[in-house]
């Protein structure tokens, strides 16, 4: 199978602080990769480096063999939605249309009819079509999250990257979002940064554990030892309501 993303010896430093150290990771086409790890473990940094928003201090990132930033319409990005100013004067349609923005800065750009049709299709797909005239401050967390996913899909990407898409949404929305990702994964590569390992375990095909270094990449089956390395503390592998709950059912639980 073709390699969608190839990361070699990647290190990223913020001044003297090391965010990522010597990460090697290959993501195959149509992989459904979950990235887990503690806060400050470099998950968002990794995503942003793949997106070309952060330049690697050393090492390389290749997306279908090319540098990030040079390939415009391959990546769809769903950022953490909490960082948004919910009072910004923009409605749902205009947010989704951002996925159709042209590269560069062409003068007098206007969205075409085709752009609008694609945006409408994506909104229908995510069940937010009736909200298209709403200003984003009038949406619930789950709705806004779906708007952001629709926007990423409007790019018509080959790879979609989501940064904690299910934090602060209710469990119904959470379930719907993962079902949707699973369906999307039939055609495109999906990469999800998450804390929600319970939901991930039933959907993802592979797992990466990141805490500055990449500790594990493979099938979503983890043992205690790896978890301990990643999080730096023993974590119960599965227990409801515990932040670090991870994947494999361990004996005697429940």
């Amino acid at each position, binding site marked *: 199978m073709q390699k969608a993303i190839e990361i070699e010896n990647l290190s990223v430093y913020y001044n003297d602080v090391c965010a990522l150290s010597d990460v090697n990771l290959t993501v195959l086409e149509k992989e459904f990769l979950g990235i887990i790890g503690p806060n400050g473990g470099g998950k968002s940094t990794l995503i942003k480096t793949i997106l070309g928003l952060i330049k690697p201090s050393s090492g390389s990132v290749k997306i279908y063999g090319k540098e990030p930033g040079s390939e415009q319409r391959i990546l769809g*990005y769903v950022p953490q939605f909490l960082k948004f100013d919910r009072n910004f004067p923009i409605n749902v349609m205009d947010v989704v249309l951002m996925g159709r*923005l042209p590269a560069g*800065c062409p003068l007098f750009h206007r969205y075409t009819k085709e752009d609008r049709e694609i945006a409408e299709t994506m909104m229908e797909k995510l069940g937010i079509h009736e909200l298209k005239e709403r200003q984003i401050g009038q949406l619930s967390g789950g709705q806004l999250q779906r708007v952001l996913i629709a926007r990423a899909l409007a790019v018509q990407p080959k790879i979609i990257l989501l940064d904690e898409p299910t934090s602060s949404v209710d469990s119904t929305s959470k379930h719907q979002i993962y079902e949707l990702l699973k369906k999307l994964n039939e055609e495109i590569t999906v990469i999800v940064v998450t804390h929600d390992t319970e939901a991930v375990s039933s959907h993802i095909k592979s797992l990466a554990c990141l805490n500055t270094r990449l500790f594990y990449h493979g099938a979503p089956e983890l043992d205690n030892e790896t978890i301990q390395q990643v999080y730096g503390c023993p974590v119960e592998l599965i227990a409801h309501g515990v932040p670090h709950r991870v994947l494999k059912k361990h004996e005697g639980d429940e």
Partner: protein
Amino acid sequence: MLEAVFKYSFLQNAFIGSILASIACGIIGTIIIEKKIVMMSSGIAHTSFGGIGMGYFLGIEPIMGALVFAVSAALGIVTINRKSRENTDVLIGMFWSLGMAAGVLFIAFTPGYPPDISSYLFGDILTVTRTDIWIMLVLDAIIAFTLISLYNILKAYLFDSEFSSVVGVKTVFIEYLIFIMIALTVVILIRVVGIILIMALLTVPPACAKLFTYDLKKIILYSILFGMLFCFAGLWMSYELQIASGASIIIIAGLIYLFLRIVTRRKLRNIV
């Protein structure tokens, strides 16, 4: 007052100046409010005082000196902000005070009687000249052209610059462009309301406009209209009461905002 406007060309200049300043303010004020860079803009405004001093010192048009300083400050703030992770607040504080200090020194070194700098600090719309009007007209044209030609891209950048960058928008270019436009606007406003009061004319009209609409285009349009209203009312007040025009404009603006705030809140509550 109306017949006086037809009679005296300085009053005509004041009116035209108000209109031109309101156009720039409505556009740029909305941008800096939505991008949350009001303090950066204030830093640029105050730095430009150094340029006014330099203008007097070198014997060139002070407003040209202000333009040079404002643009340099804008480029400096963006560049340092991008390159280092130094706290932007600190940076603004330094540009702000250094610019003003430079202005004071330049004026001290200028031979002859010290020029009247209070009209640059507090503005005097009644002294706006034909040359000022032409400069303002050109700057307005640049700002309006930029807004119209890059509207979709600007809006996307303001809302989410990261995502825009991922789809290939040249966000670095847009960022510099916005800051240069802020610098241009500041220079326009120096003559009308002065350095000290610039922030009010940039922020109050969009703040009023935002009470009425959630549409970015309408916010800009209403801001321009509010700006004109404030300027005309302030001008009238200053003419009738023989008080400083810049301060009058700002006081009127503040009072109208307060009034609208109270009225619209009541209205909103009724609707909800």
